[in-house]
């Protein structure tokens, strides 16, 4: 018997079964209801972030805001007090470094602490939370840095790009140091190392500023190279961090 013949036999047999349209609809409705009940609707990423922000621990975000205001306040005070260009550049670098270290601390504390393992099993995983808040807080920081650069640069007649180069270099260096510290077991156990490192960085910048011509136009090339190298190292560090997060061991460290 060929397939075609078997098919016809089945069609004929089907015709003999009376299907009640109302029963058919009833079954369909109950099946749809059952499926709806089984499947809980899922929020989109924007809604998840909003809900997460609504319930998350905001004390660190408040700390971040206070640090930013403090940094801007100090810069304004220095400007009012008539600080010279070098002092203003160093103050900008120290301020940006401090904010960068605090941002790393904030993201680590919020998402890579003891809740990291639990978060990794959720729909919106720890990796996604870290990435999302890096982008959000990073954007806020960028806006603040631009504000500082434009304001200080224009009021003291320093080239915007020149000041931007110093600030971004300091930003990369601080991030490299703080992410580096948190990548080690000792660093994770002693998070105050982060703040010690920012103090050392501040001292380092101050000492560094004593080098003649360090902020002059002749050394801009060297600053550009340093910025590029530090930026590349930071990018590699972030890539490594995310690879380790995917592997998972870093999430179970605490």
């Amino acid at each position, binding site marked *: 018997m060929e397939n075609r013949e078997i098919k016809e036999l089945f069609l004929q047999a089907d015709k003999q079964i009376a299907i009640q349209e109302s029963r058919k609809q009833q079954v369909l409705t109950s099946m749809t209801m059952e499926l709806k009940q089984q499947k809980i609707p*899922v929020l989109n990423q924007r*809604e998840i972030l909003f809900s997460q922000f*609504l319930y998350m621990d905001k004390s660190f975000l408040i700390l971040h805001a206070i640090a930013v205001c403090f940094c801007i306040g100090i810069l304004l005070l220095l400007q009012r007090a008539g600080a010279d260009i070098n002092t203003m550049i160093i103050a900008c670098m120290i301020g940006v470094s401090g904010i960068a270290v605090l941002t790393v601390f904030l993201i680590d504390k919020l998402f890579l602490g003891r809740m990291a393992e*639990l978060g*990794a*099993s959720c*729909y*919106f995983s720890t990796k996604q*939370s870290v990435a999302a808040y890096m982008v959000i807080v990073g954007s806020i920081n960028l806006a603040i840095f631009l504000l500082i650069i434009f304001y200080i640069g224009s009021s003291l007649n320093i080239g915007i790009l020149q000041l931007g180069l110093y600030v971004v270099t300091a930003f990369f260096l601080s991030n490299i140091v703080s992410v580096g510290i948190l990548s080690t077991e000792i660093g994770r156990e002693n998070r105050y190392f982060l703040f010690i490192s920012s103090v050392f960085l501040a001292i380092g910048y101050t000492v560094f500023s004593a080098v003649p011509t360090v902020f002059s136009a002749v050394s801009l090339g060297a600053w550009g190279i340093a910025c590029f190298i530090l930026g590349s190292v930071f990018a590699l560090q972030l890539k490594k961090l995310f690879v380790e997060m995917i592997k998972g*061991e870093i999430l179970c460290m605490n």
Partner: protein
Amino acid sequence: MHELNLVDVQKRYKEKDAVIGFTFTFTNGVYGLLGENGAGKTTLMRLICGILQPTNGSITCDNIRISDMGAEYRQLLGYLPQNFGYYGDFTAVRFLNYMAALKALPRDYAKGRVEELLELVDLKDVKNKKLKTYSGGMLQRIGIAQALLNEADILILDEPTAGLDPKERVRFRNIISSLGKKRIVLLSTHIVSDIEYIADCILMMKNGELIRQGTENEVIADVQGYVWKCVVPECEVQGLNEKYVVSNLRNSGENVELRIVSDIQPMKNAEITEATLEDAYLYYTQVLGGKNNAVV
């Protein structure tokens, strides 16, 4: 119904293999994972949750690698880690709402579910208290509640009854048992009685390997004839303790009644007695592959 398939799963840390060649298929039901501390239970659970990546082997859910499924797989998961982290300043309600946000649950749904679960874990009266004021047992109950938030199809519970008092243990055993009808529930413990009554299948791990699997009756059947009961003077206890695996010890006047798990008769007057899951566990973890004395 989902099918979770582990094939030759291996996880190697720098110096040590935490899980070696683990092959097993999970379908709906309650699975009890038994093993000593360091046997690889937690690592296996982290692998199943997709938190850790296996060094070798594959973990698939309905024939798709869980690493490829990503969020779709995590949506099916409910996980209670052994030491789950929490923000101490959060209240129970806020913590559960935060977890619901991470699980992408709509706020209206989450609100109702949080209330339901707080009722289930008997924490409704203290729902607005900060978690840092909670006792160990209360925190464990909050941990269980968060694992149940999304009505997970795959529920992984790492030592869920640790820190619970006997009344709470019984209550959770019943909850877990009922949950296992519609989903995969894998719970690890080294407390045998936790899974004795509720696990449809018992998995025993030792040094990262799955050494025995089966129903309670199957596992116990293996050790029938290897469990002995004897009454000895107190002065002989020390010697027997060093030579055999003593699963129970009870003082009765000047003598001591011992329950010994051994494949040979430990002494002349020793009589074979009915084996329990605890005896089977001791047999597999202590007697086979070298004796380490264990008085339970």
